[in-house]
């Protein structure tokens, strides 16, 4: 092992000074999303080439929804909770929604595909990008066309001597149709989904505590300048994709013949 010279130490200090401590936790900027490897059963029709969008780019009211559960009875640290959550993310989702984790796992910049359903039973193919991931939290950011435009942050921390697991969604409905859908049962479906996710996570640690929900409307105004987001609506595009499946099948048959 070689000893560090004062020059080496100065260089190391300079490097640390230039590179913020959070640098490794954030995704790098990319104009559009790129999916690396599509898992069997997943559909990549509404993610590749789309831009990631935050809560400011959406159409509807701005909501902050917080779901949390105390893991008081479990001997588990926040770091262990987040490690487990990242590794088993898809297993904690309620039935009916499929999360195709990226091959590299929940790491910054990776993109995951999602197959879910909207109110009325409409099938939806969409995805999320891992925006941020450290040892005690990670955040997902939605693409254009997703039902909402925003971030979901999963975190764990100590509160009054107990470890708490939390999911916090900061979102606007992406377009007028989604805003209508959220008001007509979509919010309720979403709340139920995250409550169930936290229940499943808690159950993994042997805890069966109720999930606390806090819903806060941060900005009640609609952003009418963003009504054109409907062009990317993943629900409409997924439905069209399903309807035109026989045509694609026939076209492929003709090509094979």
């Amino acid at each position, binding site marked *: 092992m070689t000893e560090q010279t004062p020059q080496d130490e100065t260089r190391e200090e300079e490097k640390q000074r230039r590179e913020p401590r959070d640098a490794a936790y954030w995704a790098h900027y990319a104009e559009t999303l790129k999916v690396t490897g599509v898992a069997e059963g997943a559909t990549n029709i509404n993610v590749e080439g789309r831009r*990631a969008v935050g809560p400011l*780019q959406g159409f509807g009211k701005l909501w902050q929804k917080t779901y949390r559960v105390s893991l008081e009875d479990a001997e588990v640290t926040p770091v262990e909770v987040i490690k487990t959550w990242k590794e088993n993310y898809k297993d904690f989702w309620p039935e009916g929604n499929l999360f195709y984790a990226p091959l590299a796992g929940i790491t910054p910049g990776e993109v995951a595909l999602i197959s879910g359903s909207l109110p009325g039973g409409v099938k939806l193919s969409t995805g999320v990008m891992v925006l941020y991931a450290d040892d005690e939290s990670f955040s997902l950011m939605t693409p254009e066309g997703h039902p909402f435009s925003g971030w979901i942050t999963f975190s764990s921390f100590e509160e009054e001597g107990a470890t708490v697991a939390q999911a916090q969604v900061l979102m606007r409905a992406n377009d007028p149709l989604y805003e209508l859908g959220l008001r007509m049962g979509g919010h309720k479906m979403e709340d139920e989904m995250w409550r169930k996710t936290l229940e499943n996570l808690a159950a993994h640690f042997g805890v069966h505590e109720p999930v606390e929900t806090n819903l806060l409307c941060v900005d009640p105004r609609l952003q009418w300048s963003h009504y054109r987001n409907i062009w990317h609506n993943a629900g409409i595009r997924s439905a069209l994709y399903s309807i035109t499946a026989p045509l694609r099948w026939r076209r492929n048959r003709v090509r094979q013949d």
Partner: protein
Amino acid sequence: MAVRHLNVEVRLEPGVAVLDLMGEINGFAEEALNAAYAEAEAKETNTILLNFEGVDYINSTGIALIVGLLARARASHRRLLACNLSEHYVEIFNITRLSDFMSVFPDEESAVVEASVS
């Protein structure tokens, strides 16, 4: 992980209330950030400037807090500007697309000039 909490000082420049942010912007920063923002609002300027020169850590919860401030600024018809972001934090503002809604200036002087002409 040692946490360095956020300290915020509020001062008044011509037409601009400046929030000097020092430390980490994470979940623990909520109280300090909201209190400082309320103090800045009380100065009754049309523009509030967030000075990130002393910020050395932002996580995704911290970025969400800034979105909250933007919503408050919009509700009261104020402009919220940012200055002295390092290259890294400019990139984060681009990734999260905060920069679509918030003008970012390289230094306080240029931000104050912009605020005074608009």
